[in-house]
């Protein structure tokens, strides 16, 4: 297995899904069973991704494999110098792991969808879109330059648009797709500006070349401030895609799409792309930028968690939970706990995808009922779904022996250590508090759905366990949510292969004075290409992490336990009357139930403002600008008619007088005007005779 064959595999798994997309889309009408083609392709992609990840991590562990070709070559240009745009593939450990996760989840969702979507009139097209999405996502993961990433970034947005609005007959679905795309675009605009700044400064889009130049001290506009700005602009893309505060509003609406799509795109992969992006460009984030990122992450973790407490739609709860968990990851990046962010990305991908698929299973058996108040008692009817979902819920709450515990604990430890090192313990506090909220709302969801008495008897009677094609993916994901895949020690992930070998860090490339002290390694990095985990942190940070490990673990366990306990007290044992509590804190409840009024706020400001401005400008254009044009025309016409009148009255007056005179004379001669040719001829003759006599020469 050589590097070039790895590249070949990567290219193959990148382009297989687009082949699936094209074939399935074009033949979808004609061949009923064409969706098998897409599924088979996905299977091969998954196999390729498995081989790729395994080979990369075992054989080429320390090298990043890249391959590129020149896409656009403008040659040596007069003012800008050499301009060449290369596209290419980079496979480092992170990309290899990520592609595996993407393909795995994608494959499972494909399988799940075969049953879930059965009977849909656009069945084949659904799979085609999934293919398009998988292709775009693979592109994001495998690229070695930011332009290509942006391109696939947008393509992911489109496939998300198409899939959210898949049932476009429903207005809410079409609206949600549009909202998702546009809100994402807001972030993308920022990202695009960031890309412009990078390109203008470095004349390349390739990550490695940019990093190399930054290491040499070349900064945008030669200032650390602009480096921060550039980093944050790029991060704006992540805000949009990962549905971070303040652009998180699209994700809950995106739940209008089919549930497997929510699992794939809006839980596991696409929304994680933002995190992936920040990981990719982590090397250019200055300390200021990181603080902003961490703050955004913390807010995004906190706000949706509070909203999730009161939501009644099973998918909405999960959507807000997703935002919250993504906020965790972003916050982890901000506080420098880079590898835990990625770790959490992977574990979250599995258990959140599982949660969504599980909810999908519930929703199908309940005949498309999504309101948890109508459920209850489903545990007996759907045991497999129940137990798998229980595992996911434990994982997301951070209970030991699950994967979620490992990664979440790492993030909390990171923020704790950050607090220790910088004295800023805000992120740690938020982190722990959100852990409590997470445990609470997840178990609220579980209890309301599966425990207790069925609240809607009729639907309950018809509910039954889903078929094997649907439960199998659930089982696979549940198994993947167990700690054992990541580390042998369920309490210390650092010993696992994933963190010790799998996830390597880039170094930070920005000048020392713009980074956090703890991100400055004590010793010089050894060799450029050699990636090893210890490169980026200072020794003090290592110590702080060690120090915070035990307290974090205990505290987070406490929080999770507390959250679960409260949930049981409220909903299972009903020791406290929830309704009374709601009445008591009605404003707060309303605030949370209405999602902090973000939609209303944006509607009232940005949307109304833009539409107002546009309709104003539309009127302005047709009334004022066009009015001026028409006014000029009218004026010209008026002026010309005035001139015409002047002409008529004064100038023409003179003429008319002459005319009148001649008319008077004409009056006399009018009699001659008979219209009879012969009479004219007589006049001619008369004239000839007269002339003859006048000029007579005889």
């Amino acid at each position: 297995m050589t590097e070039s064959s790895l590249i070949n595999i990567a290219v193959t798994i990148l382009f297989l899904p687009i082949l699936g997309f094209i074939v399935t889309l074009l033949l979808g009408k004609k061949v009923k069973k064409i969706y098998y083609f897409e599924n088979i392709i996905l299977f091969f992609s998954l196999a390729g991704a498995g081989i790729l990840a395994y080979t990369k991590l075992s054989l080429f562990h320390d090298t990043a494999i890249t391959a590129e070709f020149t896409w656009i070559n403008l040659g040596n240009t007069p003012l800008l110098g050499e301009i060449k745009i290369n596209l290419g593939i980079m496979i480092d450990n992170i990309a290899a792991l990520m592609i595996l996760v993407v393909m795995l989840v994608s494959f499972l969702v494909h399988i799940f969808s075969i049953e879930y979507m059965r009977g849909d009139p656009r069945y084949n097209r659904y799979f085609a879109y999934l293919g398009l999405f998988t292709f775009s996502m693979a592109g994001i993961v495998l690229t070695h330059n930011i332009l290509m990433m942006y391109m696939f970034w947008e393509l992911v947005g489109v496939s998300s648009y198409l899939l959210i609005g898949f049932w476009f007959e429903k207005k809410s679905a079409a609206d949600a797709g549009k909202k998702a795309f546009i809100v994402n675009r807001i972030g993308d605009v920022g990202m695009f500006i960031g890309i412009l700044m990078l390109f203008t400064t470095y004349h390349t889009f390739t990550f490695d070349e940019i990093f190399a130049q930054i290491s040499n001290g070349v900064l945008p506009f030669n200032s650390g401030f602009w480096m921060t700005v550039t980093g944050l602009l790029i991060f704006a893309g992540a805000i949009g895609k990962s549905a971070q505060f303040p652009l998180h509003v699209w994700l809950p609406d995106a739940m209008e799409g089919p549930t497997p799509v929510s699992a794939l795109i809006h839980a596991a992969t696409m929304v994680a792309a933002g995190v992936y992006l920040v990981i990719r460009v982590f090397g250019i984030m200055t300390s200021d930028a990181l603080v902003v990122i961490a703050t955004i992450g913390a807010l995004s973790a906190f706000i949706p968690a509070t909203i999730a407490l009161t939501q009644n739609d099973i998918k909405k709860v999960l959507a807000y939970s997703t935002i919250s968990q993504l906020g965790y990851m972003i916050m982890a990046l901000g506080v420098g706990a880079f590898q835990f962010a990625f770790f959490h990305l992977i574990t979250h991908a599995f258990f959140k995808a599982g949660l969504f698929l599980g909810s999908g299973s519930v929703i199908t058996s309940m005949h498309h009922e999504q309101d948890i108040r109508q459920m209850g008692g489903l545990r007996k009817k759907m045991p497999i779904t129940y137990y798998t979902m229980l595992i996911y819920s434990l994982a997301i709450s951070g209970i030991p022996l699950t994967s979620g515990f490992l990664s979440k604990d790492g993030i909390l430890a990171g923020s704790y250590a950050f607090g220790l090192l910088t004295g800023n313990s805000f992120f740690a506090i938020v982190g722990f508090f959100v852990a409590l909220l997470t445990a609470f709302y997840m178990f609220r969801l579980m209890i309301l759905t599966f425990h207790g008495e069925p609240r809607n008897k009729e639907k309950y009677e018809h509910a039954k366990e889903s078929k094997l094609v649907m439960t199998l993916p659930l089982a696979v994901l549940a198994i993947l949510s167990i700690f054992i895949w990541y580390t042998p020690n369920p309490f210390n992930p650092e010993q696992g292969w994933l963190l010790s070998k799998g996830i390597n860090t880039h170094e930070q490339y920005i000048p020392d004075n713009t980074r956090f002290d703890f991100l400055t390694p004590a010793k010089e990095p050894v060799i450029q290409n050699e990636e090893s985990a210890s490169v980026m942190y200072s020794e003090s940070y290592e110590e702080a992490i060690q120090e915070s490990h035990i307290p974090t673990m205990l505290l987070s366990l406490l929080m999770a336990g507390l959250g679960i306990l409260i949930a049981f007290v409220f909903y299972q044992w009903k020791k406290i009357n929830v309704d009374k509590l709601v009445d008591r804190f009605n404003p707060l409840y309303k605030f949370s139930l209405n999602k902090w009024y973000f939609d209303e706020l944006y509607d009232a400001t940005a949307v109304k403002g833009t539409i107002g401005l546009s309709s104003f400008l539309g009127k302005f254009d047709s009334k004022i600008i066009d009015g001026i044009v028409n006014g000029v025309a009218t004026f010209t016409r008026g002026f010309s008619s005035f001139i015409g009148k002047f002409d008529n009255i004064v100038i023409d007056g003179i003429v008319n007088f002459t005319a009148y005179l001649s008319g008077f004379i004409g009056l006399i001669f009018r009699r001659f005007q008979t219209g009879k040719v012969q009479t004219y001829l007589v006049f001619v003759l008369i004239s000839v005779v007269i002339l003859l006599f006048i000029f007579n020469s005889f």
Partner: protein
Amino acid sequence: MTTYDIIFYLFAAVTLLSAFFVVTNRNIVHSAFYLLFTFFGVAGIYVMLGADFVAIVQLIVYVGGILILLLFGVMLTNKITNIEIKTDSINALPASIVLGLFTGALGAAVLNTNWKVVESPAPEATTTALGNLLINEYALIFELLGIVLLIAMIGAASMARK
């Protein structure tokens, strides 16, 4: 008075008298018949002037063609059954006066002019000479006339057909 003179006056009288009747007769069919005599008279005058071929052509074309055409015109534009084919005249008085003056003026001009007359003996037969002229010096005009005739024929036919 030679015989030539007598014959001349005869023809002149025929021509002018019949022309007068053409002009003054109120019955249009009669006018047409008088016109026949006028043409004969003119043809005679042509012979007097030594233009025998033109005289023949005059007879053939005018008498045989144009007059028939005119008669057809008369008959097609008036209902045959109702032979109220008399036509009035207008402007008779002023026209007479003016034309009188006009004729007087012309006549005065002709009579008062001292014409330089170079009598050329008329050739015995003009046909050959005219033919030569037509296909040599005047070939183009000859051709053009043919075209004009063709066009006139087509035009007349198409106009009358509508």
